[in-house]
């Protein structure tokens, strides 16, 4: 980490896209970028399906874009808003030559151009109850981490993060910051003070952050889509599991936080669970009782 910045100014754009109106939503994103420019963020994160809306059914085939096109569009609206360099992360529906994914891109934008640092394709496609992603989309096959000037990061999309093994693997692979673009239809009014789904998300994010000593950056879509209300609640959780900022559920807004990246090392020193896991992981994964493919499985 020598020479790396010790602080990261991150902004989350909690957006409410007009369903299927990509250009209009891109323009709205440009307005949010313009509002953010003065603050000079290092990183701006948008939710899952940020420029189309989430529940698209068959219309996903009309709206999915090649990653390069999406990245160019996003970079262009940033450059129209600011001359400063920035990193952007955002979710979108990807058309990869006729195979469709729920994806998120992390890119660096400068005046002269932009560069994709990482493309994550959602691995856990919810296809139950209100969800039907795998009816329309293909599953990503790899959880990667990537280097940025702020250290190693990973991208997870919505249900990816519901599976504790995902942030775990990201952290074991070196991620110090996990970014989660999300679109979570809120539900559960029997709890107290907030929707049960919002409380559940916060538990998941806090547990992931605290267990591994990572910053967790969660950008949630807001707004109702055919009666299903996206639950916003974009937030940043520090490596000790504290929610340092959280947006309301139903408001289009910007969330800002300045992360002290040194906190990661200090949190891990105080609670070295990640180091413990790295030591025990081979025993866990080499356990023959685990339903994992082994070398020689295909023999014969």
């Amino acid at each position, binding site marked *: 980490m020598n020479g790396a910045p010790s602080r990261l100014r991150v902004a989350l754009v909690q957006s*409410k896209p*007009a*369903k*299927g109106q990509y250009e209009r939503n891109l323009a709205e994103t440009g307005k949010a970028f313009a509002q953010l420019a003065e603050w000079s963020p290092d990183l701006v994160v948008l939710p899952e399906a940020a420029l189309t*809306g989430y*529940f*698209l*059914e*068959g*219309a996903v085939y009309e709206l999915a874009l090649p990653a390069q096109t999406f990245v160019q569009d996003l970079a262009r609206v940033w450059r129209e808003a600011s001359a400063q360099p920035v990193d952007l992360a955002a979710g979108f529906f990807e058309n990869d030559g006729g195979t469709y994914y729920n994806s998120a891109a992390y890119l660096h934008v400068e005046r002269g151009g932009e560069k994709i640092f990482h493309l994550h394709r959602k691995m856990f496609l919810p296809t139950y109850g209100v969800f039907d992603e795998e009816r329309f989309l293909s599953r990503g096959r790899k959880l990667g981490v990537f280097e940025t000037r702020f250290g190693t990061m990973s991208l997870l999309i919505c249900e990816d993060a519901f599976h504790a093994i995902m942030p775990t693997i990201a952290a074991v692979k070196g991620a110090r910051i996990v970014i989660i673009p999300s679109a979570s239809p*809120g539900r559960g*009014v*029997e*709890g*107290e*003070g*907030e*929707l049960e789904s919002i409380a559940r998300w916060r538990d998941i994010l806090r547990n992931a952050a605290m267990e591994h000593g990572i910053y967790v950056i969660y950008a949630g879509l807001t*707004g*109702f*889509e*055919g*009666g299903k*209300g996206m639950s916003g609640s974009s937030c940043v959780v520090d490596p000790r599991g504290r929610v340092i900022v959280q947006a309301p*559920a*139903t408001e289009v807004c910007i969330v800002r936080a300045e992360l002290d990246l040194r906190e990661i090392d200090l949190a891990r020193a105080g609670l070295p669970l990640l180091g413990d896991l790295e030591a025990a992981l081979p025993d866990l994964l080499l356990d023959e009782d685990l339903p994992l493919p082994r070398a020689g499985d295909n023999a014969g």
Partner: protein
Amino acid sequence: MTLPIFESRPALPAAPQIDAAVATEWLVAFLRDELVERRGIHAAVVGLSGGVDSAVTAFLCARALGAENVHAFRMPYRSSHPTSLSDAQLVVDALKIPCRTIDITAAVDGYLQNEPKADARRRGNVMARMRMVVLFDQSAKLDALPIGTGNKTERLLGYFTWHADDTPPLNPLGDLFKSQVWELARYLGVPQRLVEKAPTADLQADQTDEADLGISYAKADAILSELLLGYSNDELVARGFERDAVALIRRRVDSTHWKRHLATTAMLSSTAINEFYLRPVDY
């Protein structure tokens, strides 16, 4: 020394709870988003029956859109109970919303006079459908959208007139059990009389919902909320519900799935609408 014992206890069957403040915030956001932002419509039309569902709906609409943008309609038939009108008026007075009374007797009787053998069920359905004719037409006149008032309990039990009560394009209460609607009503300040009175469709003299259904809402809601989680009748009985009540609820739910769908369309192609050609309602 005897050690203290801490033991889990199975929860007693009870009607589902609700945090009324959270639900209100969510439903107000729903109404604003769906009406104003997605449709560009700033006014709502609500038929006030004098019951708690339409009262809660009007209260929510007033919060979301402002009282002046909630157009209430009372639509009595000649056999309607007089208290239905006066109870609806309590809502109008509490919210200070514009209200008009349109008597549907002439319209309903204009048709039914040629159908003298129509029984109470048929007559009730004609009244319910006529009320929707009024609400949709008034919506067109007022640049407003009719807002549905049906709750989850009556939807699950099929206790409504198909293509009548369920027709308005937005329904804020449709995922709330009746017991939850009552809690919401108390939180919103719906006049106490409406919260405490026995619910009635008021399509026949001295009719009450609970007499029609053969079960109290509290009991029905408790069973329904568990039944939807996937428990079998035997499991529900084991959880403390009466077998006859469970059977009654199961029978009503299972015989009314069709009422919760649009028409069954014969599929002839691989572009059949809503089968292959799938687009969300807000696309």
